[in-house]
């Protein structure tokens, strides 16, 4: 790792591997130029309970490449269905305009899943949060509970729109917290 370019490549590789890196350790402007030149984009996010911890996340320039089953075929890694359910309910709880909250405790999430999906569904929440969704950088565990992770905070517009739509539908469900039958 001799040249400045090699060092930047290594830092971008570390960003990809670790999902996020503290901004204090990084040469942001140089990394931003290097990421943009190669189809990626650098995001600055605050993921911890303490705003002093600001991190860099490697995202996609404009929108993320979409999976395609037609030519040119592109296979993307998908989340297990059980983890998708947990993710959607987590996102809807965090974004619920009636209960502004930055983090969630596990019982709150698993209780909501039990009501919406059926008894026992909440049991999948801990495994999905602590393994699949954490590894994907979608959630992060802080001392205040589970919070959106670096990847969720840097979703592109179309992804966010899909998740917002799903959340809005959940908010009107009678079994949603605060709903008619909750």
């Amino acid at each position, binding site marked *: *790792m001799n040249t400045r*370019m*090699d060092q*930047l*490549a*290594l830092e*971008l*590789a*570390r960003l*990809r*591997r*670790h999902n996020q890196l503290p901004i204090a350790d990084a040469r942001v402007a140089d990394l931003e130029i*290097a*990421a943009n*030149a*190669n*189809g*990626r984009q650098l995001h600055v996010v605050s993921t911890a309970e303490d705003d002093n911890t600001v991190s860099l996340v490697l995202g*996609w*320039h404009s929108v*993320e*490449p979409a999976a395609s089953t037609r*030519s*040119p*075929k*592109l*296979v*993307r*890694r998908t989340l297990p269905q059980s983890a998708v359910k947990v993710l959607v309910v987590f996102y809807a709880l965090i974004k619920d305009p009636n209960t502004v909250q930055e983090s969630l405790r596990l019982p709150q999430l698993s209780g909501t899943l039990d009501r919406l999906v059926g008894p026992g569904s909440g049991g999948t929440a801990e495994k999905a949060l602590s*393994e*699949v969704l954490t*590894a994907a950088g979608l959630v992060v565990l802080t001392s205040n509970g589970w919070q959106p992770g670096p990847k969720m905070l840097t979703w592109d517009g179309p992804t966010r729109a899909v998740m917002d739509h799903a959340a809005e539908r959940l908010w009107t469900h009678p079994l949603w917290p605060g709903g008619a039958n909750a």
Partner: protein
Amino acid sequence: MRDQATDEGLVLQTVRALEAADAPLRPRDWPALEDPHIRELVGGHLKGLGRQLVAVTHGDGGPIEGWLSGWSDEVAAELAGDETDLVADDFAVLALIYLHSEVLVRILGEDVPPVLEQLDQHTGPDGRDTVRGQRLTKSLRRLRAHQLITNQNKLGPALMRLTPTQSRILEGNLVLLLRPDSLWARDIKAARRPESTLTEEE
């Protein structure tokens, strides 16, 4: 004369696809990758991200099935020293699966039953007491999350992303482990020795 602007657009589109892909990009879907000039440009962009273009072949030296990106050789050596969520148990389990898959199936070409079945049939120590119960379950889960093994406990798709140099290092390790006193092992050790040490000894 080539249109540089078109090439650059195509190259970036291909780089993004490679970086997002969970399976090899097939040449018939991504014909640009059949063009050595485009491949060179793609390789240049990937290098800027600490990545490298990897050809996925059917067997050693077989036809190219598709293309993936993986850690470049320079970056992989640095990342190997970084912290990871994988623990010693995970490496032990992965090594066991690797040994059974590579030595028995690929190298010796034996038609062997699944790893668990082989271990059950084995008499004497089989290494399983070192990682068992919940620890084994957790290790398998972590290895699957990293795509190092499949749900069937076979070597996973992450190993397709190894560059030729990285594959050679892994195969060299296998020789050092199984035939530590062989001439082959001696050659591998000599090749890995820093140049200054070689000069002093030879």
